Every structure is written in C-alpha cells, then in structure tokens.
C-alpha cells in the first residue's frame, strides 16, 4: 500500500460562496441551508482514495483549510496560505461578481506559494436555471484558461461534482 502523504490545501473565495459547505459535503456528506460565516480558519482532515498515475499509486491526506471568505477581493489573513500545496477557488454562480473578485486572490496565492495547482469551482449550480448555466460556465472556463487550471460546476447542496473537485486537485498535485 502506498504511503499516505499529508498535504495542506486551502479553500479560497468570497464570503458566502460555499467553502464551508463544500468541505462539509466532501468530508461528512452533510449540508445545511443555514449560513454561519467563518472567521479565521478551521482545519479538517480527510484521506482521499488512492490515485493512480503512470503506474504509481499515491494517497493523500488533505489538511483542508476552510478560510474566512474575502470581501470584494480584500484578503484578511495571508498567513493562512503559507505552505499550501494547492487550493480550491470557490465562486458563487448566483453572484457572478465573485468570479472577478477572486482573480486577485488567485494571483496573490500563487505568488506566495510558488505556483501550486488550483481548481476553480462555480458553486450552487442547483440554483441556476439550465438556460443560464452555459454562459456562466463559459465565463468560468475563460477564467480557468487564464490560470491554466480546471474549472468545475458544483453544488454543495446536491453533492454534484464536489468530490470530483477535490480529486481533480489531488490529481493536479501529482503532475
């Protein structure tokens, strides 16, 4: 069996985008409609299933940093980002403004940690009518293209693509 490697990853994004909800869904398979804003940070551990790459098996234990959301791109604690091996950038599909707000976060995060992999997610798909989804996804993909990273549409409420997002990040970390 492959050795389990500890990795720190951060969830970044605007307040209310669904960072805490993504983690609750991924780690505990739970969801609540209540909103309790995160101040500071909470670290939760989760061992991922082994990932195979070029005939090599690797298994990560993620130390997931649920970090207080930014407000219109303003960052409160860069110290939390120190030593992260990757990040999930969470945006809120209901508030397309959260896309542009996160750009400055991404740039600072990448600079601080020597360009670790990131994955951008557009969360709350369950609230978006199908007719709207295409254009929002296009915008998100354009953003992902700028940073050469994957983008996924998720719903912490229904669980759609939540686990996939974390696994994609793990895969990127193996490259």
């Amino acid at each position, binding site marked *: 069996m492959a050795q389990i490697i500890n990795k720190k990853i951060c969830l970044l994004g605007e307040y*209310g985008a669904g960072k805490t909800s993504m983690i609750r869904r991924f780690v505990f398979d739970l969801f609540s409609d209540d*909103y309790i804003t995160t101040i500071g*940070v909470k670290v939760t551990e989760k061992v991922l299933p082994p990932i195979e790459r070029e005939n090599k098996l690797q298994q990560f234990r993620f*130390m997931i940093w649920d970090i207080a959301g930014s407000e219109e791109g303003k960052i409160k604690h860069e110290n939390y980002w120190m*030593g992260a091996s990757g990040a999930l950038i969470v945006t809120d599909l209901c508030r397309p403004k959260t896309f542009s707000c996160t750009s400055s976060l991404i740039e600072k995060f990448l600079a601080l940690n020597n360009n670790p992999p990131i994955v951008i997610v557009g969360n709350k798909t369950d609230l978006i*009518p199908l007719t*709207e989804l295409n254009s929002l996804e296009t915008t998100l993909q354009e953003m992902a293209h700028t940073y050469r990273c994957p983008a996924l549409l998720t719903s912490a409420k229904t669980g759609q693509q939540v686990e996939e997002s974390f696994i994609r990040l793990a895969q990127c970390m193996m490259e």
Partner: protein
Amino acid sequence: MTESSLSTIILESLQAGWIFLDQDLRIVQFNSLFQTWHPHYQTFDKLSVTEVLPETVGLDLLFKELISGKQTAFTLSHIEKESLKKETGYFNLIFLSTKIPEKPILILLFNDTDFALIVQKVQQQSYEIKLMRSLLHTKTAMASGLIGSSEPINRLRNMIEKVASVPYSTILIQGETGTGKSLVAYMIHHLTDKRDRPFIEFNCAAVPETLLESELFGYEKGAFTHAAALKKGLLEEANGGTLFLDEIGDVPINLQSKLLTVLESRKFRRLGSTRETTSKFRLIAATNRNLKIMLEKNKFREDLFYRIQVVTINCPPLRDLGDDLISIAQHFIQNYNREFGKAVKNLTPEARHKLKHYDWPGNVRELRNVIERAMIFSEGPNLGAEDIQLPQKPGQEIANGDVSLPEKGLSFEELEKGLLRQALERSSGNQSQAARLLNMSRDTFRYRLEKYNMLESS
C-alpha cells in the same frame, strides 16, 4: 535565578498552552494547559508537531526559517477547534524562534474564544444581510424566487422568462390579493437587461385621487399651493427602467386618459409646466379586480385596457398550488428561523393537513402571517396544528347581518368606527380593499372615514 527558570515563570504567567520543538520538529517540552487542551494524548514527548497540531502541516519552510533565526515570529489567529468538551473554541497560534539549539522553536497557544465569538457575531450580521441582498439582485435567484414545481407555478415561471426578453412591452398582472403580483413585477424587471435601472413601485389605491396625479406626473415649484419645490413624478423617475403600478383599477377615469397619452407618446408635462418631458419605461400594471367588468360599467377606459393588456400574466391563487403550499410555508419557516433566531424544523402532518384544507383568501401574504404568528408562539421543534391559527370562514361570525344586539345595547358609532379601523388594518391601509371588505364603494368608505375624522390616520 537562572535565565531559563525566569522564562518558564514568564511563560506560565501567560495563560497559554505551550510546546518547545527540537530541530526535527518533535515536541520536547510542554505545559499542563497544552495537555488539557489536547486530552486525547497521554504524553507529547517526541511526537511530531504535525501529528498533534495538523495546522502545522506544510509549514516546513517557516520552521526552517525559525530555526535559522531568519524569521522570529509568525501568527495564525482565530483557529477554530472542537477540542475541549466538544464545544467550538478559537485559538491563536504563535510561533517563536528561541535561538536555543536543543529547543529552537516555541509554539504558544492562546484561547481566543470570547473575542472570536464577538467578531463572528458582527461579521455574521453584515455578511448575512449582504448575501441575502445580493441574492435578491441576481437573475438566477430571481428565477428561483418563485417556490414550487406545480403546474400553475411552472406556467408562471415560463411566462415571466418569456416576457422579460421583450424589453418595453406593457404587461398586465392579474391575481387575487396577496398572490405576489409585486414579486412577479420585480422578477420581470430583474430578468431584463434593465436590472440596474430604476424599479419604481406604486400602489394607486394608497393615495387619495387628488394626490395621484401629482405623484405620477410631478410638479413645478408653485404649481399649486403646497408645491414649495420642484418634484419629479414617478413617470420621470422610472425613465430607463420599470414603472410598476399596482391596483391600476383604482386610477380615476380622467387620469386614465392622461396615462394612456404618456404610454403612446412617451411624453408628458409636470403639473404647472409648459415643457414636455420624455420618459421611456416599461409599464407593468397589476390589479386584483376584473377590469373587463369595470369596462362594462364604464369605470375603466377601453383604449387604456387594450393598451396595457398586450401581455397578461395570471398569478395563481394559493389554494390551486397543491403541495407547493407546503414548500412555501417551509420557506417562511426558514426565514423566520433566521429572523427570530429559532430552530423550527418542519410542519407536523396535522399542521400540513390544516394548511391544505383552508382556502386562503389572502393567499401567500396570509400564509406568511399565519406562519409568522405560529413561529412566535411555537415551542417545539415542529409547528403543530395547534400552532396554526386560521380565521373562521368569513360570514361564519355574522350570517347576513344576523348580529345579536347585546342586552345593554351598544354604541353604533363605536361599532362602525371599529369596523372601519379593522378593515383598514386587514388591508394594510389600502382603502379600496378595505372598502371591499365592508362591501361598500371607496367613496362611501372615505366618506365614513371623514365623518369620524379618521382620514388622517388611515
């Protein structure tokens, strides 16, 4: 006293948990408070710091710099942990370089819970309001602003999406009182590209006829006795956006023709002005009356009617929505949970039954009031049938004027005043609605208010 025992005394006075690490980042010394805060461990001796404090995973570079003295201090504040007694606590972690070769790193752990909880409360209020407000303004949330999946709601949703794509067409929304006509108008506005433009909402029944014209058209300074300064009218305020006129059936007939002219020419004059003003807006009109019957009685102009009913949207009454009624009630429960700080989970089957077998003359507005009242008085985790207070069927109290006169008699005047007041209250000050509740015309109703000097207060 040696230097090291002095620093131990200082450390102990800090009310902090602390550990010293060796060059391999293993714990070589700790105090009792640190142990209390990490009760799962018998000892920490020679344990790796990352094992005990998962927050330090990934911080290798920082540790290296602390050991070499390149960095002297580093702080992580408000770290949330569920350590002691399973309660949420917040800690501040401070990393210090000691420059002592056998224990080069000191980590201090301060309990920060009291302060953090205050910060949390303040932040919560601000973000919660902002999140709700911004959700209200997004296209997407607007489309889901209508709750439910019943046939009538789906039809309504489709209709809204369709008409929103035609920017300036006039729309008539029909529906009983309390069916959410104003929400529908707001949704149409926000689904069009006029989202950032003004949305002007006005209830034509809410002001006396004499004021209606100046409200709509505005006036120049000195146009009449009380016109002390220029005032823009709603027609002008709505320029570029949407003008939503609720209770359009209450616009008096002479004003109807003026309104029609504005709709056709997009031009009008402020009262007391000779200059024409142009204003381009989408008119959404709403009514809970049957305009066709008003046409027949010559209470509504035919040309205006045909002008505004280019597109008609019907808001279904609550009693036709089947199980959506329960979803809407649950939505209100969530809202009031937030507002009242309660944790009501759901409705009992008996409560659902009761809600579904009432005919809801006041529709969604009435349902909201019923849920609000139930939430204020409820104590259990669910709302039961006994929490749901529904009025008796109208007419049950008084069958055909069959009120029995109390033995000692009564003051007829007081009775009348009381009824006028109640009617106004029940219709939130809307005189036309209040008049209808008492089965009289608006003029008669106003005459009676005037008689008792109640016009001011209404």
